[in-house]
């Protein structure tokens, strides 16, 4: 059994990474995502890498299936069962209008319509005590109505169930018994945190995608078996760990956001191997740019994700990598607004028709076209020359559609406007990076920038200069980094529970027994899911000063004592807020246990690209426009495959490879690190 396989089905491409444990080599495959048959896309990509499924030890799979079903509204017909008095919990949302001056503002409609929201008498109080027992005859009547309504999936969500899930568990069991063939789920199965609206929308979303994902996974497994694969299939969870298919079928909402996960896991692996304790992982693709903080090799996970965006979407309580995403990608379209101002995005040409330079019928200039027009992307070297780019088309469009209306003339004017397009994209991207650091009270200058995705390496140097960052790192295979990172993913199981107790010796008793219960549950689950007994555990708690809503998540180490918990909280609080609230009472709010189960994965040293020739690489030369000097410079162009470990050069330089182009600014210095990573140092003097 020689192969480890990761398959990442994205919005545009399906990426595969196959690691051969016999010779240490890793191969990559890429196909256009086949929306009609997502599994076929994976198998085709696999064919490219010439790996045999019958020789595979395991397959890891990330998919955008769940988020697509939610966004495109292609899920099941769902019913919701709530506590009496709360039928409208999902429809009413929380009464806020995130776009304040839009007089007709409304949210996207709920996934469940009001006529399929049912109430049953039951009530639990805020301490978990039963005030009114679950009315099972009433529940049976509701089940009757649900059956009559041809519903495919049911969500149960009761008030205060986060403190005591007995009624939800019971209702789930009764409904499953009375409604065979219907997917049944409950809020507390997915989240043990408070806030009735968020738990209800989470349960509804899980039900909405449940039947569909069940079929998808069953189909995927069957197709793999047809190819004589007899190892385990794991699904990539939004929390950064992989999960068994059994868990994924019960809890498909945990697969919500797989796209950026692989890249961040990969960034974490490189960060650890390279001793970089503070990284900003930055991924730029065709339509968006995403960034996340990676500290001490790990990234934060947040518990609420807004499907369809914060403004009009709905929340889902599931652990998702803490990420900020903005609408700036290679395909983002540059345009002139009604007031004659240059704008970039949020509309994107995507991959179809794509940028003008791709010659696939695009007519509106994009960020990629601006890069081509300025010589930053070579017209003959994109995808190793497999896709010759239309330099003239890109320049003409920028001149005619942007420069002329703005009053910029001549070649210099076109360059200025093309650079303006890039600058505006950079403003949007730096805004995202600032948001994720300032909001969390971090000093951006303490971080290195780790760039990947098709567009990340082009902008790394400029972003660093804008943000005052001194080091940019480009990993091997930046364009396929997401699937590569997925190969590195461990199995991870997260459990959390709201506890609400104060930091005191008595409170610590509760904390210890809470952790014990969660650990036992996680351990059992890990054994059942992965057939492995040797899980290691991470302990975290969401803590806060009494009265403050926002909690700080801190890592706790055994033995759990009042003093050590206080120290951990104060350190975490200070890092975020810069000060302590002396004398403030401290509360525990949520306890979290993460169980990590090791899964075979490649060594990073195996991923260093092999460089054949030992002679010094000879660059070609090209005129490349640099904003720092406001004009074009004769710039050496290198093939990345020709640069050995230890190679170093002064900027400006351009480094090209199949999946990406890396720009090194005039004052930067480039070096190839020991894991084959490109390291661009940006001197403080060049910070603007």
């Amino acid at each position, binding site marked *: 059994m020689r192969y480890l396989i990761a398959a990442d089905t994205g919005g545009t491409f399906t990426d595969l990474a196959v690691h051969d444990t016999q010779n240490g080599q890793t191969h990559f495959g890429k196909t256009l995502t086949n929306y009609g048959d997502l599994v076929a896309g994976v198998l085709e990509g696999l064919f490219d890498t010439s790996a045999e499924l019958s020789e595979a030890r395991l397959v890891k799979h990330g998919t955008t299936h769940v988020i697509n079903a939610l966004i495109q509204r292609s899920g099941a017909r769902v019913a919701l069962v709530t506590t009496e*008095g*709360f*039928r*409208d*919990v999902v429809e*009413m949302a*929380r*009464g*806020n*209008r*995130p776009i*304040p*001056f*839009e*007089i*007709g503002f*409304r949210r996207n409609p709920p996934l469940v319509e*009001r*006529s399929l929201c049912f109430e049953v008498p039951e009530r639990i*109080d*805020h301490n978990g005590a039963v005030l009114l027992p679950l009315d099972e005859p009433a529940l049976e009547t509701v089940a009757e109505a649900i059956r009559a309504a041809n519903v495919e999936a049911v969500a149960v969500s009761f008030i*205060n169930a*986060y403190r005591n899930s007995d009624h939800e568990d019971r209702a789930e069991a009764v409904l499953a018994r009375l409604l065979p063939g219907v997917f049944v789920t409950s809020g507390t199965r997915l989240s043990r945190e*408070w*806030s*009735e*609206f968020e738990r209800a929308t989470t349960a509804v979303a899980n039900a909405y995608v449940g039947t569909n994902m069940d079929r998808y996974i069953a189909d995927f497994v069957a197709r793999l078996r047809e190819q004589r694969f007899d190892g385990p299939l794991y699904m990539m969870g939004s929390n950064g760990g992989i999960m068994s298919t059994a868990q994924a079928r019960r809890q498909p909402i945990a697969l919500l956001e797989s796209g950026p996960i692989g890249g961040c896991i990969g960034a974490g692996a490189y960060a650890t191997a390279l001793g970089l304790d503070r990284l900003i992982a930055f991924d730029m693709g065709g339509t968006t740019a995403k960034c996340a903080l990676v500290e001490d090799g790990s990234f934060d996970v947040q518990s609420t994700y807004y499907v369809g965006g914060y403004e009009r979407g709905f929340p889902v309580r599931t652990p998702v990598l803490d990420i900020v995403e903005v609408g700036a990608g290679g395909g983002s379209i540059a345009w002139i607004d*009604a*007031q*004659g*101002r*240059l*704008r970039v995005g949020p509309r994107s040409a995507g991959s179809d028709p794509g940028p003008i330079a791709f010659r696939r019928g695009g007519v509106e200039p994009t960020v990629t076209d601006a890069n081509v027009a300025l010589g930053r992307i070579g017209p003959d070297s994109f995808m190793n020359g497999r896709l010759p780019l239309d330099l003239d088309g890109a320049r003409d469009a920028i001149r005619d559609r942007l420069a002329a209306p*703005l*009053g*910029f*003339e*001549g070649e*210099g004017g076109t360059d*200025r*406007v093309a650079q303006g397009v890039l*600058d*505006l994209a950079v*403003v949007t991207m730096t*805004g995202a990076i*600032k*948001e994720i650091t*300032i*909001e*969390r009270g971090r000093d951006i200058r303490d971080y290195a920038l780790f760039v990947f995705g098709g567009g990340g390496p082009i902008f790394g140097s400029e972003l660093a200069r804008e943000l005052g960052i001194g080091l940019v790192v480009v990993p091997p295979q930046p364009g396929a980094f997401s699937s590569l990172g997925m190969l590195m993913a461990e199995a991870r199981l997260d459990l959390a529970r709201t506890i*609400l107790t104060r930091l005191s010796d008595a409170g610590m008793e509760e904390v210890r027994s809470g952790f014990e219960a969660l650990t036992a549950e996680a351990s059992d689950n890990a054994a059942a899911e992965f057939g492995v007994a040797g899980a290691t555990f991470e302990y975290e708690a969401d803590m806060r*000063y009494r*009265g*403050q*809503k*926002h909690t700080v998540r801190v890592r706790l180490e055994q033995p759990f004592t009042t003093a050590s918990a206080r120290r951990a909280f104060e350190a975490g609080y200070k890092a975020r*807020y810069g000060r302590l*609230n002396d004398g*403030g009472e401290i509360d525990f709010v949520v306890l979290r246990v993460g169980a990590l189960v090791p899964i075979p994965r490649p060594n990073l040293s195996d991923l260093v690209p092999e460089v054949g020739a030992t002679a010094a690489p000879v660059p070609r030369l090209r005129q490349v426009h640099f904003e720092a000097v406001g004009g074009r410079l004769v710039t050496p162009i290198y093939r990345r495959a020709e640069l050995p470990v230890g190679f170093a050069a002064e900027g400006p330089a351009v480094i090209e490879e199949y999946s990406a182009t890396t720009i090194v600014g005039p004052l930067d210095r480039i070096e190839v690190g020991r894991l084959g990573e490109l390291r661009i140092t940006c001197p403080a003097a060049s910070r*603007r």
Partner: protein
Amino acid sequence: MTTLATRTTGAMAARPPIDSITLEIIRHQLAAIPNQIERNIERTAFSPLVYEYKDYSVGFVDPVGRLVVQSRGSLPIFVANALGTAVREGLEVLGPDQIHDGDIVITNNPAWLGQHLNNVVAYTPVRVEGELIGFFAVLVHWVDVGGSVPGSCVASNTTDVWQEGLQLPTLKLLERGRKRPELFRLIAANTRFPAFLLGDVEAQISGCQTGHDLVQEITARHGLEAIKSAIVAMWDGADHAVKAALARARPGTYIARAELDDDGVTPGRRVAVDISVTLSAEEILVDLSGLGPQTAGPFNAGRNGGAIAAARIACKYLFSPDTPVNDGDFRRLRVEIPDGRFLSASPDAAIGHSGSTVPTVVDAILNAFGQALPERAAAAHHGIYGIHAFDGRNPETGERFQHLDTVTGGWGATAVADGPSPYRSNGHGDVPDVPVEMQESFFPYRIEAKRLRPDSGGVGRCRGGLGVEKVYRILGDCRLVVGFDRVACPPWGVHGGGAGLPASVEILRANGTRESFSKGERRLSAGDFAYVRSGGGGGFGPAVERSVEDVLRDVRLGYVSREGAERDYGVVLSDDGIDEAATAARRSTMSSR
């Protein structure tokens, strides 16, 4: 000649000193700053009113107090440029030279801000190369500033401003970066919740300081002249949007009328809200001379926080809703109002509920505007803050608590869509409800239901949004203070649409007695129930013109009852669907009326 001219222009245009692209970059960078600070304040504040209810505003104003950028989550009620008004007061009291680098100045002076004393603005000057380029300002609703009831602003029976709490007329909280401990002691001594408030104030201070640094950094990068040009371009851009909307409006004078139920002191004494607006291609004149006189109770606001705020909010909704707020939005706006009206009250007037009347006034101004620009018109929304505040001591912990809440209700229908719901008033923005589960774990009551009110939306071709009913079961002694309105003047429909059902508050005592009230306070005990109901939005167009399918759908979804369908829409339902004959007959009678 032509060639030469082109060449000259071309050379100039290729690298003018500050080109349009640079301006655009600066505009984006400046606009991002308050939003970044906003997120940080939300994370660090201590009281739910700030982090959950988001009763604050962050922005940057120019050296004379004109608004440049404001955070997007800022409540609409603050677009009156509360931030800039505070700065203008400071400039008059201290002068620019006496506001030093590192100073944090605070004010809640009613004579200037004209809003309840809880709204405290803090600001700090931003200088580059010694030149003052503006002030970074953060307004936070302080959770309690003394006065007759916890929460200060919620008392519904105050008769002058001194009963409402501590006044802070332009004081330096920090001087050249150093805290003035005596002021912190003064603040701590004058609030019922010092731990919460001082935590919030820390967040407010650090918001000013971080904002200051970010503005300074951008200015240092692009240069002073570029920043100044960008600011002018931002104002011009906003004005451009207003001008374009005005070009589509029919010029003329339009009037609208509404009224407030009473002034909070004398039941039944109506307060007039007569509005006149005059639109031309160049100007928006909002004449508020027809507002009733200053009231004896706390439903007043000063000119800046009242009349100008209301006019600006309405303007923004109608003429330039899509862009971030700045001073340019209001360049064409002129507001006329004599002193002594309830939105131009004297500085000694009670102003605890300064914002409460604004949604009604904004509704009325929008009604007048809508006649000139029907494509953007909407029927009235539920129209009140609907304050309902519980306070007392928690029997479980013995600790003092206060929970200030406001209602969410139906919004008005437009020509093309049913009214959305439930949302807070038009003076609110991104203000989420505090979850029932959080409230139950903090406060001694249980919420037994929170649901839409069927048949509460104003009838019409497009139906108004629905109001909400919340049912509280009281578990321990506490006080309920409410400020409701729009009963005598329920949310109106337009173009033949019906009014929404009004809001109400009802108490059901453990002994079975019932009592309704809309302003004032009541003592509650374990076993009592409180029903808090918000209004529906108004409808658009005659109800008889609503399609039978839409009515049927409303009945199926429970938005409209079967009886309502027949009574209001003339759609008669039988057990197996629509009774076609009865429906046709009923609808023809309705049309002929």
